[in-house]
């Protein structure tokens, strides 16, 4: 009743190689298009949620890591967002995030690296060929989605950063700019938002940096221009609008852990056996479905990632 079937992306719609080669211009155009929201194709009906302008198409290959589960409609992925920089209400980022400028954009690399540097987003986009990764996303609040991201392995980015042998963790930081991110004017969280991964987690092939969604440039409310996606962890680990990567010897702090240490840990692996102190994590509601479904250990990615945590007490390291 409530769900409209998403339009599939036929292969005929995949950008041809010539255009792909000129994608820098394309991406420039994309930000302009994003700004000119009115130029967008579909404002479907008066009561329908915000519909962003159609973003530029991306070229990518399919991945063996993708799930074949039914994908959550684009409308829901782009209108139901936890992105406190644009308000604590899940329905406000779709509108509020449109004021974010995603070009020019740089990512600062610092800490335990050979040499600190500044990477330009367009250079980052060329680090590795883009892949489509259709992943489950499980929010710590008890809902889930299936999202066709477009991105590349985080490991490709990390290799480019040249961390030293001292680097045991990587900390990723969201942009801090209250002018563009009005939510940062409130003290609801400590800004800027930071998240961290252990190096072996970060180098795992399932961890990606996403730059697209449904074959198009990532909408702002979903973390444009560059966001982390770690599908076996609760959604809040997957930091959005990244401007800094810092490599550290010690475990970095992460925003939600700082906000409520007893409720959100550093690891935050999806785990149906370890409840949030205030609610159960055994089940989840897949957006678009009526019945709750069982939450899977490591969000169903246990075969690939369980070994990272061998011998660890996951109740303590929640």
């Amino acid at each position: 009743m409530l769900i409209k079937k998403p339009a599939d992306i036929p292969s005929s719609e995949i950008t041809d190689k010539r255009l792909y080669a000129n994608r820098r211009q394309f991406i420039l155009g994309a930000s302009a298009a994003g700004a000119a929201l009115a130029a967008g194709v579909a404002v479907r009906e008066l009561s329908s949620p915000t519909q962003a302008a159609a973003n530029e198409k991306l070229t990518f290959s399919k991945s063996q890591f993708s799930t074949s589960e039914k994908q959550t409609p684009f409308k829901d992925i782009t209108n139901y967002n936890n992105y406190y920089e644009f308000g604590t209400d899940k329905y406000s980022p779709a509108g509020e995030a449109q004021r974010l400028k995603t070009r020019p954009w740089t990512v600062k690399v610092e800490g335990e690296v050979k040499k600190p540097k500044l990477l330009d987003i367009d250079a980052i986009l060329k680090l590795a060929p883009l892949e489509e990764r259709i992943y489950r996303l499980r929010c710590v609040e008890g809902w889930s989605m299936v999202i066709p991201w477009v991105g590349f392995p985080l490991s490709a980015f990390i290799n480019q950063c040249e961390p030293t042998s001292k680097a045991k963790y990587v900390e990723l930081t969201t942009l801090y700019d209250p002018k563009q991110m009005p939510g940062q004017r409130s003290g609801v969280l400590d800004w800027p938002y930071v998240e961290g991964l252990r190096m072996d987690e970060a180098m795992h092939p399932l961890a990606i940096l996403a730059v697209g969604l449904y074959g198009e440039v990532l909408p702002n409310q979903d973390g444009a221009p560059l966001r982390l996606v770690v599908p076996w962890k609760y959604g809040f680990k997957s930091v959005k609008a990244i401007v800094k990567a810092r490599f550290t010897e010690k475990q970095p702090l992460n925003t939600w852990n700082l906000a409520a240490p007893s409720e959100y840990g550093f690891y935050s692996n999806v785990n149906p056996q370890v409840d949030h102190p205030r609610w159960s994590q055994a089940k989840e509601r897949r957006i678009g479905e009526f019945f709750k479904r069982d939450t899977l250990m490591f969000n169903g990615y246990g075969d690939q990632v369980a070994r990272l945590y061998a011998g660890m007490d996951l109740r303590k390291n929640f």
Partner: protein
Amino acid sequence: MGNKGVILLKVAVFLACLGPLASLLWRYRADDLGANPIEVITRSTGSTTLVFLLLTLSITPLRKLSRQPWLIRFRRMLGLFAFFYGCLHFTTYIWLDQFFDWANMVKDVQKRPFITAGFTGFVLMIPLALTSTAWAVRTMGGRRWQWLHRLIYGSATAGVIHFLWLVKKDISEPLMYAGVLAVLLAYRLAAWGISARRERRVHLPESAS
């Protein structure tokens, strides 16, 4: 206000009280409940319950401060609407959210403080709704009836705590409800204090003489 005016106003208020439900049904029909409709329904029926509890509690202060005795005739209706939306909220939880998973709900009520608080608030409303008739007031006697109906203080407090405990981080909205409730309860404390002192003043001269 005359009797006729009150009756007309009562009809208007009754219809207005159905507004939040009508809006939900309308949005459902228009496919406008967003990505997570059950969450929206739960949130909306829950906050409407709180609003009606606070409205009910504001009748007495309003009536006394404005010296408009006819306002009392709206209290029962508002209270029953609080119960009505509370029932909708509770049904949403049992049916849409948990889908009659009784074992899990029993666990929830015991284990999850915010559910325990919400459940308490709801249960406390039941005797009030059951004894809301004029017949009940007559049978129980005004004094006992009034004592029983002070349960609404507990119900509203439990409701606000329920909201405070369930939000992830941004407690600004539940704090608004808490603030209004605090004012309404403070009024009662003050009124009680004043009347207690007045009574003492009546009795004191006798014992002093």
